[in-house]
């Protein structure tokens, strides 16, 4: 790890002042489960670390009647264990408790889960977020892309968004609150993620001197939600595909639907095709299957990742059926 300066501000105003104009100037340190690994691997070496763990206003969960406010420093385990989250937003709790293992869940934060960098093995080997060989040609389409994107994979980005919480939070219509030198900025969480088009871009709509302060989730009353994750190992493993759904059912028919997939595209992938396929139908095997088929109708293989199309389809189908059962896994 390269030498860095360490700052531990007492307020969020101090914190954002200590962050820099360029990404390499400074980085906020919360749980550090991703940041420190990036630094050890010399993938990202900020000159200064700004410890934000002392910012008490970024902590805690407030479950009000109209919304849930999750402070960015809330640990993943705190989120998974929170009684009101478990009761009112079971799909969020489910997504949280599936993440990695106890060590990561106890250190990793919600803000960090949303802002962590992609796990693309070319990126992690130092070939860049849009990894290229010395001739400038992307390494992914001709390389080993077994874990890469099946949607939104027209290039130049091929990695998959690594957040397991973002899909379910977006399915629930969440907002992310950012804070920078000019004050706060609210964004629909869906708009927070974007597919980089050049080396200058990042995968988040976040400026180098901003921090995530809160996630605001609207009340989920009456919504049927579910989260379904497919991964190979029982713990300490990245999902191969996951789905989160939030459905409103009126008079036995789906009246509104949000269908999100994770780990399949450079951003949490919302499938309007699947949503349209569900609307107006009762939740059934057939409806779930056709929505699942619709969800991957535009998916393409990069060569080694065709199986992920099937996994995404299964995840969507199982999530819909689970939601239909009232979230029973």
């Amino acid at each position, binding site marked *: 790890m390269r030498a860095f300066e360490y700052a531990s501000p007492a307020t969020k105003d101090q914190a954002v002042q200590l962050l820099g104009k360029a990404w390499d100037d400074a980085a906020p340190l919360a749980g550090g489960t991703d940041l420190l690994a990036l630094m050890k691997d010399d993938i990202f070496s900020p000159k200064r670390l700004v410890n934000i763990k002392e910012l008490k206003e970024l902590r805690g969960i407030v479950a009000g009647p109209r919304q849930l406010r999750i402070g960015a420093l809330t640990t993943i385990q705190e989120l998974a264990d929170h009684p009101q989250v478990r009761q009112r937003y079971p799909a969020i709790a489910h997504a949280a408790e599936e993440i990695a293992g106890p060590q990561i869940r106890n250190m990793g934060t919600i803000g960090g889960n949303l802002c962590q960098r992609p796990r693309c*093995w*070319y990126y992690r080997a130092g070939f860049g977020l849009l990894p290229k060989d010395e001739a400038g040609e992307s390494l992914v389409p001709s390389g*080993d892309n077994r874990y890469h994107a099946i949607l939104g994979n027209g290039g130049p980005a091929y990695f998959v968004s690594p957040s397991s919480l973002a899909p379910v939070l977006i399915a629930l219509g969440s907002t992310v609150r950012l804070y920078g030198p000019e004050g706060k900025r609210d964004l629909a969480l869906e708009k927070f993620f974007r597919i980089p088009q050049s080396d200058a871009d990042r995968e988040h709509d976040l400026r180098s001197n901003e921090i995530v302060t809160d996630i605001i989730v609207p009340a989920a009353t009456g919504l049927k939600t579910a989260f379904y994750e*497919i991964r190979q*190992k*029982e*713990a300490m493993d*990245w999902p*191969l595909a996951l789905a989160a759904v939030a459905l409103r059912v009126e008079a036995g028919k789906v009246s509104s639907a949000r269908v999100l997939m994770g780990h399949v595209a450079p951003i949490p992938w919302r499938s309007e095709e699947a949503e349209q396929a569900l609307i107006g139908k009762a939740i059934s095997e057939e409806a779930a299957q056709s929505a699942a088929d619709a969800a991957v109708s535009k998916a393409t293989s990069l060569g080694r990742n065709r199986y992920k199309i099937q996994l995404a389809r299964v995840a969507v189908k199982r999530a819909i059926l689970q939601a239909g059962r009232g979230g029973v896994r």
Partner: protein
Amino acid sequence: MADYKWPEAEKRTHLGKSISRIDGADKVSGRAKYTYDINRPGMLYGKVVRSKYARAKIVSIDTSAAEKMAGVKAVHVIIEPGSEIRWAGEEIVAVAAVDEPTAEDAARAIKIKYEKLAHNVIDTDPKAVGDNARPPSEQTVGDADKAFKEAEVTVEGFYGLTSITHCCLESHGSITEWEGDKNLLVHISTQAVSQIAGQLAGPLETPAGNIRVKQDHIGGGFGSKFGPDRWDITGARLSKKAGGKPVKIMLERDAELMVAGMRPPAYARVKLGAMKDGRVVAWESESWSSGGLGGGGSPPIPYVFVVPNQKRKHTAIATNVGSARAWRAPAHPQACLITMGALEDLAAKLNMDPYDLFLKNIDLTGARADVYREEMKIAADLIGWKAKWHPRGDKNAGPVKRGLGLSIHTWGGGGHASDCDITIQPDGSVEVKMGTQDLGVGTRTALRIVAADTFAIPLDSVNVLIGDNRYPASGGSGGSTTIGGISASTRRGSLDALDALFAKVAPSLGAQPADLEAFQGTIRVKSDPSKSVTWKQACAKIGATPITVRGKNPGPGTLTSSGVGGVQMADVSVDVETGIVKINKIVAVQDCGLVVNKKLAESQCYGALIMGVAYSLYEEKVMDVKTGRMLNPNMEFYKLAGIADIGELVVHMMTGKGYDERGVIGLGEPPVVSPGAVISNAVANAIGVRVPTLPLTPDRVLEALEKKGGTNNASI
């Protein structure tokens, strides 16, 4: 002269019992110090600059900036300009500095210019690698062509295992320091405490006798830690340049996975010829393998079953990948999957229960056929084979299919050469000193058991000293030779020491030394057991100078021998919509001659099964064709099994008559041979189609199902 044999079952006091590891508490509490934990006064940290290219010529190396950095104490060029890099991660330059960050900064400051050369990291297909595929070798046994003509049924299949790494949880490395100009002290993570000095002597131009090697505990080796590595020798050179200061070089995780160990892959197309009753008459195989630049030898196929007519062709592929090292039961897991997979496929084609097909052919296994028969019966009972087995393809509704698989394996495991010193002190305490190591055998515990059992004294009366090459030399821990070697030499030495003690005690008991025996903490007269003294009283007769006796293996009497058989069975579930395989249960029935410590023997088997689950389902050294780099040199994407992934593991050790009289035989390797085959066979039984290549990842499982025209896109 002592009668050099193991005691009869009824006379054993500690031998063969279930006894907990004597250093278990030290290990779980962190008191046990591994090489990684060793920090020496004034120690420097060494870092190695590694090649980012798989093959290249080094044009120039500029170390000037690094040498000028504050805190940098030594720089050593390992590969001179003009030389060729052979694989990504190869060592080029090393630095030693006062702390780790400074060493890393210095390593980054070294400028190396390369001239890139064409490389090959493909080992999956000899047709895709041009000249890197060596001309094939061919072998025949009997008349395969004739036998295939006469065969009533033939079956063809393809089987493979990707290359994997050793992934030692304690990475490779050492702390080296010169004491004066002449003597070198080496703390090293090694499987061969007594062999390291001899191997360092040449490259360091230092007499082996001047090199002291120490290691208390090791965090895994699996065959990858027999010799000093280039980084260890480099550490010694850096230490010399830094005036003898200790230099610590322990590999980072990425280097550990890239260059410090690789199990060669193996792929084979197999054709089997058989009669309708299941008798196998002919084998034909075309196989390929790679072990790095040297290519790779053929696994011993057909495995265990000596098919009377064989035609085999093998191609070695040269790759620019860190060289293969012995991986726990070298070549056996590969041979086992290829052979047992083909037999299971034959059984499916004949619509036979593979249990019956294996039994039908069991005499082809030779000398241990009866052992296998007995073990198969026990394994079948433990897993409920007859009740649970179904013909290939679980017909139950729902996406999760269940299946059973079986496999058999063999190994040698005769004890290696071993010397030890057994000392009986006048106060009754006993010491065993041996230049061996505990690679997981539970060496300290085993030595204590053998000595205490021989002297008929409590276990804690025996102090065991190992892990230092100043103790009598014992073999490296490889080939499952440790337990046989160390227990035999300790038994012989203890018997001789006991004889020496009898000679001192006999006059006071008015008996001949030959008429004495050790019994429950006493020395007594065999012909008149009422005449006895306590162990302590007996030892008081020794006088001021303790008895020290050298125990040796090999030596008189059959205390160790070679050759074991094992049977395993697995019960798995496969989600045919996701391709995810879960282990329900694995049963391992294993013989290893006389068991020294039942608990540790079982523990070896559990460990082997866990390692087996990992290489069957998760582990793969993923090489990038274009860049020649390993893509998963980390613990995120180089996946190992976690506790929740391993299912229920059941171990049954074969002991008693027919086993004990063969003496102590090694156990580290045999139980890791079959897991790949049993899991692959169980998956085939569950889903109705062979998934050809390990690890059985979702992509491979789904691809096999799709080729079968099966359930890939099926509804739930």
